[in-house]
């Protein structure tokens, strides 16, 4: 039996150390997360981490610790069922149904459950209404907390150091990087998800959408607008947002 090595050395050994498998034939590509252009170049050759995760999955399946069909189901759920289209339906409903909006702002979780959404990381939802005077922005500085049932898994930028570090100290600068320059008289409120509450921004309904159906409105609502880094724009023909 090989001696069991100690903590972080194992971790490093597994993630970037020299493997004796086919992985050793693949050149190290450095950090997995590269600029998009570089990512593309590297996709031709499986990265070291890809081979290692594949080996880990095979091993755990063979050991009977995990079921491959269960893994497939998780991937499918997060790729096709849980995502920002769910949150967009919540927002559109709030725009067309004032009674629903009132329930949603008073107590997020049960109102969101009316549309069939809930579960892990959505147990305690708080909905924040953007108005012409108050703009809400959500971050998790300590981790990557995010309301999965309504927004899905977080995008890279939300989980990464630049956003997590600057959203609280320079929210207006961060918003400008997203293309949103807020007037001086708008109050910016940043919400740091440090506890078990999860936040969803209810963006402003854009002008010129008065005659649109709930479904058509939902199609306008973006993930970014529900995190608070963007506004919802009216369709190009429908006037300015």
């Amino acid at each position, binding site marked *: 039996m090989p001696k069991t*090595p100690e903590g972080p050395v194992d971790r490093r050994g597994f*993630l970037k150390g020299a493997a004796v*498998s086919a992985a050793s034939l693949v050149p190290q590509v450095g950090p997995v997360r590269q600029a998009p252009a570089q990512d593309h170049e590297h996709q031709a050759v499986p990265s070291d981490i890809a081979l290692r995760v594949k080996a880990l*999955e095979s*091993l755990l399946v063979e050991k*009977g610790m*995990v079921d491959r069909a269960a893994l497939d189901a998780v991937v499918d759920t997060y790729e096709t069922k849980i995502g920002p289209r769910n949150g967009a339906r919540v927002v559109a409903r709030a725009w067309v149904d004032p009674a629903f909006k009132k329930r949603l702002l008073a107590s997020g979780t049960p109102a969101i459950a009316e549309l069939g959404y809930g579960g892990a990381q959505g147990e305690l939802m708080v909905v924040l209404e953007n108005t012409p005077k108050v703009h809400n922005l959500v971050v998790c500085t300590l981790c990557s907390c995010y309301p999965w049932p309504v927004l899905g898994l977080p995008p890279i930028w939300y989980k990464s150091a630049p956003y997590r570090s600057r959203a609280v*100290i320079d929210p207006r600068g961060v918003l400008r990087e997203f293309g949103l320059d807020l007037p001086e008289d708008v109050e910016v*409120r940043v919400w740091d998800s440090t*506890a078990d509450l999860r936040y969803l921004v209810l963006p402003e309904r854009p002008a010129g959408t008065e005659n649109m159906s709930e479904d058509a409105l939902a199609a306008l609502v973006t993930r970014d607008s529900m995190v608070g880094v963007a506004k919802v724009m009216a369709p190009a023909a429908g006037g300015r947002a």
Partner: protein
Amino acid sequence: MNSVHDMGGMHGMGPIEYDRNEPVFHEPWEGRAWALVRTMGRWGRPRTRNFRYELELIPAADYLRMSYYERFISLMVDRLLRANLVTCTELQSGRPDAGSINPTPAPPPDPRGGPPREEVSVKPRFKVGQDVRARNIHPLGHTRLPRYVRGRRGTIMRDHGPFAFQDTDVNGDPLTRTPQHVYTVRFNARELWGEPTRSRDSVCVDLWDDHLERA
């Protein structure tokens, strides 16, 4: 602990990398890694340590270098090795060692699953509208009190009721098992960041009773 995971207010992390057409998983291995993390449950998981604290214990330089899913996989591998559920040769080959016996039985479900809000009656220490100060503490264990609010004055904006306290000692054990109220505390941006900041803006942080003292 004051490690690099506590990023609020730091400079030097570069521009925000925005990918307009970002897929859920950038490469298939990310999806498989995520599914493993969601499916493996408590296999090899230490009895008390919480997942967030384990992430924070990743050495700072590694933490910054790793992607989200790499950190998760790193933790999982670490746990499995420590619990002697897998060996290094198995991780490299992707196959059980000759003569190894499959581990049984499956571990019990996570006792901390489900909503963390506690259905108990606990008196709040603070009232909505009250001014409070975040404690100036620097614990070595896990804490939900970010560095950038410590010692700063804020106002209780909402009381969310009693929750299990998530802060731990250095071993990852809860500091208290008695539930306590969680509040959204609103800090004026100028109180946190000084003069050039707009006094109109604010940062709202969710904190437990033990993070706060009277202002």
